[in-house]
């Protein structure tokens, strides 16, 4: 019995552990192309960046691709050269008078400073129906940090879809302007040697300004007409969050409706799916979404992003504070409204609520 135990004891420390070497491929900085040209007024812009490398953690920064030669070429051979912004590095803009034309196909061609050439597959510009009307709906969202819910305005676009073509719609927010109201009478300066106790110094001006902004959607609003081909339908097209300033008085926005290609729709839908992964078992698995950019030097090179060419229509709407059924508490800026970035006391020339 003792001998058996000795044998068993003898085998116990002989279990070996070999370290497992994992060969993690070095992350590449992939060219990322983002931009849309449309039939709307220019200039239109294309942004080129290099993605950050990643391993266990993200490394490096997303860097703009500068000093590239970027052109847009139509199917007749007309080439439009884009110029890089002096401040917005990596952003290349068309001349202001450039507009895409319905029925034409466009390709984006890029010659990088390193001499690499990239091209997109042709994107054909399809016509887009007008936005018949825009309905406003107040939406509340749960707030993780508070019992008071987040809220905002959902824009519902009414579209009369043409029956004779397969349409792919994409909505984006255009420039927005709203009346910003502040409280200059509550102004208290920062403590200084001359005023260490922060004695209030009310200002006489100005309470009301017009603030300009680009309010980006946090989600992608895309849809195809499979379910309403040839019919008039209403589709959520935008969401504008109430931040306590926007809907205090009057808010104006240009809602832009694009008719994109099937490939662009498929790309955006996949991006939307990936962006809205919530961590549940029903989520689609994360994967690289291939765009329409190709490296001519190495066709197997992964190029991220999508160059889109689209028909564009736009509709301007004014939203009054009374149009909202639920509002956030009014936020207060205790200062002259003119100090707020993008704010001016002068109303836009086309302000016509």
């Amino acid at each position, binding site marked *: 019995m003792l001998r058996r135990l000795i044998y068993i004891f003898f085998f116990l420390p002989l279990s070996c552990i070999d370290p497992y070497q994992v060969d993690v491929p070095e992350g590449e900085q992939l060219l990322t192309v983002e931009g849309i040209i449309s039939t709307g007024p220019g200039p239109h812009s294309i942004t080129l960046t290099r993605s950050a490398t990643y391993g266990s953690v993200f490394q490096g920064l997303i860097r703009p691709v500068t000093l590239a030669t970027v*052109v847009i070429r139509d*199917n007749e*051979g007309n080439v439009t050269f884009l110029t890089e912004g002096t401040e917005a590095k990596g952003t290349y803009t068309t001349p202001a008078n450039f507009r895409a034309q319905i029925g034409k196909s466009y390709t984006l*061609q890029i010659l990088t400073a390193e001499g690499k050439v990239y091209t997109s597959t*042709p994107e054909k510009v399809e016509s887009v129906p007008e936005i018949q009307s825009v309905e406003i709906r107040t939406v509340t969202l749960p707030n993780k940090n508070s019992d008071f819910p987040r809220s905002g305005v959902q824009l519902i676009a009414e579209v009369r879809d043409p029956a004779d073509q397969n349409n792919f719609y994409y909505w984006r927010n255009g420039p927005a302007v709203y009346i910003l109201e502040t409280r200059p009478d509550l102004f208290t300066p920062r403590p200084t040697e001359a005023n260490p106790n922060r004695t209030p110094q009310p200002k006489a001006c100005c309470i009301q300004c017009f603030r300009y902004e680009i309010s980006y959607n946090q989600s992608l609003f895309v849809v195809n007409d499979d379910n309403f081909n040839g019919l008039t339908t209403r589709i959520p097209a935008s969401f504008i969050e109430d931040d306590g300033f926007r809907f205090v008085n009057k808010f104006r926005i240009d809602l832009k409706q694009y008719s994109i290609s099937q490939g662009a729709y498929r790309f955006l839908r996949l991006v939307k799916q990936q962006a809205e992964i919530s961590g549940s078992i029903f989520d689609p698995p994360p994967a690289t979404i291939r765009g329409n950019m*190709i490296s*001519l030097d190495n066709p197997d090179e992964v190029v991220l992003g999508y160059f889109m060419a689209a028909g564009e229509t736009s509709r301007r709407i004014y939203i009054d504070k009374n149009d909202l059924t639920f509002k956030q508490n009014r936020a207060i800026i205790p200062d002259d409204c003119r100090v707020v970035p993008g704010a001016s006391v002068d109303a836009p020339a086309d302000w016509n609520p």
Partner: protein
Amino acid sequence: MRKLLSVFIFYLLLVFCACTEENETPILVATEDLLFVGGDKIRISGRLLTNREVLATDHGFLFSTESSFSSPITLSLGEKKNPGRFIGESKGFKVGQTYFAKAYAEVQGQRIEGDVVQLQTLIPAVETFFPTYALQGAELTIQGRNFPEGGTRVFFGNQEAQIIQNLFESRLIVRVPAPAGQIIVPLRIVIQDKEIILSTRFEYQSGKFTKIAEFPESIRIYDNLSFYNSAGFHVGLGRIRLGNPYPGFQRFEPTSRTWTKIDFPGEPRRFGFATSNFLGGGGTEIDREIYSPDLSFWKINGSDFERLPDLPFQSIEPLAVEWNSNLFLFGGRAGDSFKVRIFNPATQVWSERKPAPFAIEGNSAISVFENKIIFLSNTGDVWEYLPTLDSWNLKTSYPGNKGQLGFPMIQILGKKAYMGLFRRTQEIWELDLETGVWKAKNPIIGFPQSINAGSFQLDGAIYILRTAEESVFGNLPMELYKFDPDAI
């Protein structure tokens, strides 16, 4: 029992040895996108489709002008070891021609072909070019579309230009070839068997300088006077470089290209004034930058000098011009910078006009155009003075190099003013006095550190006397150049 167990195990083995029939998925080739169709270039993508390992001994694209692909153009991309996308690019197609294209792959000795796509190569067109006026050797950009990378030739008249770059088949950058005697030439672009002649013509930067004479005695004079009249071009007075005053004049006769010494009956002087018919002012330096003014005033008759009543004022280094038979003196040193004085030969009376709007001294230039007196200031401003209205007008600004210390020249031929040659510069520009358009002319030849000692015009040409700056040592004679603005 053992036998039964053995049999059972044997049958059990047979059960697991069921044969599977190999089911291979087909290998397909797809002709995908026409990525680029230009004038003579086609870029197309295809794809080898299969879900297993594959070795294509060859793959690529076929092009033909006929849908039957008889005698096709083959673009072979060689061996392909994996399925996936492939891109081919081929040049040398005929512009404006319909072609058919399809992808292919050779797998296991069998050729697999994709769908046929139809395309048409595009027709080249030119929109614009710039600059429309340039010097030989300059870079010129032609904008248009569908310029083939091979087979595009650009001609300036009959002179072929070197194509430096063909950017995206839409922007040709060419080097302006040497002119063949003509200043204005048509721009032609030859592509395959097509020729495009642009409606706008190209103009060569012109202006030819020819050295025609040297100042006699191998001397250089400074602060001198010069004038031109029917007797010839007179240069003199002032002082010899680092030396004594120069007491007389030398007269140049353009037809014989000879110099003749002319005596001056008055005292030598520096910084005086002279026109075709009058001479006077200036002074002699009695100490550094201190002058004893010379008030003598002379009428010039050819190369003879007749003394007039003395000037009623000092006048050192003014600008002088004759207009409507009157003598105008503008500015000068010693507080006279803004003075405008007129001498009427008929009445022998001096009078004054409104002050000039800018300080005028000898470091500016003056000329007459129709009813205006044109000034080129030392800072490059071009002013007009209307004697009839006694009014001033800032017309434009000299676009060229203004050098360091002014001293430009100006001569007017017809409706065009030729001005420039500021100190230490060799640039000369043409200003169209009606349209206000500037054109650079070919720079002057000769010693670069030269200044103007006088100029005149005759028979459509401008003559400029140049002298090396006083600080420059060496045997550098004063040189007289003939400038023909429209010659190359």
